[in-house]
């Protein structure tokens, strides 16, 4: 960078320039990844718009209560993750560890409830390979999203374990920041999934 950084960059600028590079890279990775999900939602819009009725006649409506509870759980986990990032920025590693632990628990709870959701829906007569695009959309979107939550749970668990061994402090905590961003991203994708698949 030869000249002064633009004002917007300065406003976003974290502690060090290197941190900003990490942040920028992560934003781009998640941006790219959101296009992947965008393509999937595009496909969903395509099949749904071409279907005469949705849900197709004879197929059950998807439950709303369980996904709504899951939305709250993920929202809560995003909040704990963000609090954890705030804690490590002030150098409070123990607090961060506890909050990230809560995030992991909430994420695992989400996955458990998704499993219950899949079993319930399957029991109500909607299986992945027999219900046309209606079933395809439900299973493909939720399973692909759940894989991301699982990746997030692994990543945040790594942060918790790392914190136990004294990793990360107020000055150096790039992985905490990046996994938090990833967690928010996965949460946002769930919000779109919830609204478009279950509510609408």
């Amino acid at each position, binding site marked *: 960078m030869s000249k002064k950084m633009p004002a917007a960059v300065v406003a976003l600028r974290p502690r060090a320039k290197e941190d900003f590079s*990490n942040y920028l890279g992560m934003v781009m990775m998640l941006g*790219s990844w959101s296009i992947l999900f965008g393509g999937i939602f595009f496909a969903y819009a395509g099949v749904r718009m071409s279907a005469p009725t949705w849900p197709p006649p004879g197929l059950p409506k998807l439950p709303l209560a369980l996904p709504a509870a899951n939305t709250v759980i993920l929202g809560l986990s995003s909040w704990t993750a963000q609090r954890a990032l705030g804690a490590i920025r002030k150098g409070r590693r123990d607090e961060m560890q506890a909050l990230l632990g809560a995030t992991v628990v909430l994420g695992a709870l989400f996955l458990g409830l998704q499993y219950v959701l899949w079993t319930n829906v399957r029991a109500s007569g909607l299986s992945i*390979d027999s219900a046309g695009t209606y079933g395809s959309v439900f299973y*493909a979107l939720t399973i692909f999203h759940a894989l991301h939550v699982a990746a997030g749970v692994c990543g945040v668990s790594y942060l918790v374990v790392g914190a136990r061994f004294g990793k990360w402090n107020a000055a150096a905590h790039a992985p905490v920041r990046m996994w938090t961003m990833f967690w928010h991203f996965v949460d946002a994708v769930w919000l779109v999934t919830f609204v478009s698949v279950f509510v609408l």
Partner: protein
Amino acid sequence: MSEQHIHPEPTTFIRKYVFSTDHKVIAQQFIWMGLIFLLMGGTMAMMIRWQLANPGVPVPILGKLLLHSTGGIVSPYIYTSLFTGHGAIMIFFAITPIMIGGFGNYCIPLEIGARDMVFPTLNMLSFWTMVISCLVLVASLLVPGGTAAAGWTTYPTLSTNIGTPGLGQTLVVIALFLAGLSTVQGAVNYITTVIRLRAPGMGYFDMPLTVWGLWLTAILNALFVPVLGSGLILLSFDRLFGTHFFVTGALVKGGGDPLLFQHLFWIFGHPEVYILILPVWGVVSDLLSFFARKPAFGYKATALSMVVICILSAVVYGHHMYLTTMSPLLGESFMVLTMIISVPAMVLFVNWLRTIWQGSLRLEVPMLFSLGVVFVFGLGGLTGLYLADIPQDLYLHDTYFVVGHFHLTMAAAVFLGSFASIYYWFPKIWGRMFNNTLGKLHFWFSIVPITIVFCTMLLVGYSGMQRRLYNVESYDFLKRLLPLNQLISYTAFTLFTGQIFFVSNFMYSVFRGRKAPDNPWEVGTLEWQIPSPPPHHNFDIVPTVIHGPHEFNNPMVKGKDWLAQDEVIPPETAEAPHVETQLAGE
């Protein structure tokens, strides 16, 4: 960003050459990988050509080695596998590794004055994701039932379990997804590196055009490869778990839409053709200037027209789907937008011609290849106008005319451009010189056959030969095209054999070539101002950039016709009075 650390050089073999985070080593890994797959894809092309020239005759040599089950004959199923493999391998496993993985990695940090990529570990990860992808691809060749046979475009329903049952196609879909993942990892790295690690003084318009091309490629990659990813994810769900996104028909209640995949594919696919050609455009724009000993004509216009092309490339994908009962209004919009691309492309092209106009050309091997790119790209670009036009495309769609067109642009041009890059950076990468005579022979044995092959394809396509036809003798009206097909095939074999000049030259020179000087081409970009090959941390002192990348024949410099980007003009020459008058007189 001058406070980049100097990482200590790794000492163990594994960390230095295998799991290296050094962008120069990763670049070489990518180049080697790409060259191996180039050979593989080329061999497949030769087998396709053999079948078209001599339908039903066993393939000599290769038939005995590879096609036991059919007694050396290319059967229809093998034929479809061959053109599928040829397309997928050349695009995702040859061009992408060589130009983007290889030269992207090599040139970006060195030409912007950085010590490495901004995320070296991600860079390593990108390469090893690509290796896994390659292994999955190679595995697909070995599983029972054969490899993918749905064309490189993997259109459903050909690519669903109905069209191609078996593990082979699934593995190829997964391999393509992993290749895309690797590309996105690389792209994020390149974009961030260019934004964050440019040397002090280097603005965006001080970057060599190579970096511009590679950077724009990376942006397109980050934006559009995920769209292909989403299509492939859904396709693999269809194949593995029985979902119905792309399956339709009486069997499926409320089934999906095969056309949906085409939309996802071409939203990615059209930018992809620019992804493949942009690095070459950048390299050629630089090389023409370097070897004509003139500043690149219209540097900013060249860079900006590449930007405009990138933007337009996102909104023209419909021209691949004119035949899918598209609304005429939409079709015409796509047609007009597609034709508009020829405006910035022409700016680029005229700038190239204007750069070499009245230059003192040095016809070194990289320059010959660059001129070759200008030639074949001109031909290819012109034929694109035919295909953009709906009434023409209705007739030409899925004929050999299309094959000729896209091979001239993104195969011949990229092929020649890759070799231009390999020869040009050869002294820097390996610290040795290649053999000039062999290089020139390689050029002539490439440019002449490649032009004949693909121009004749335009001809047979115009006569109506279908793109994926197995046997020309199947139709009466195509039988008379057999001699032309034989001409294509035997010229293609010449082209393939001519590559022996490259292979022998490359293998010998990499290990035994004459030691190269630091700056054999006498150019001013930053990578040539450091030793060949560069040390582990590239620059002992991160340079401060003062000049643009094409400072040739600056009247204030005496004794040489070039100026390094970080070189200060000695004050006594700068103040020479007669130079001042000369400038004032202009």
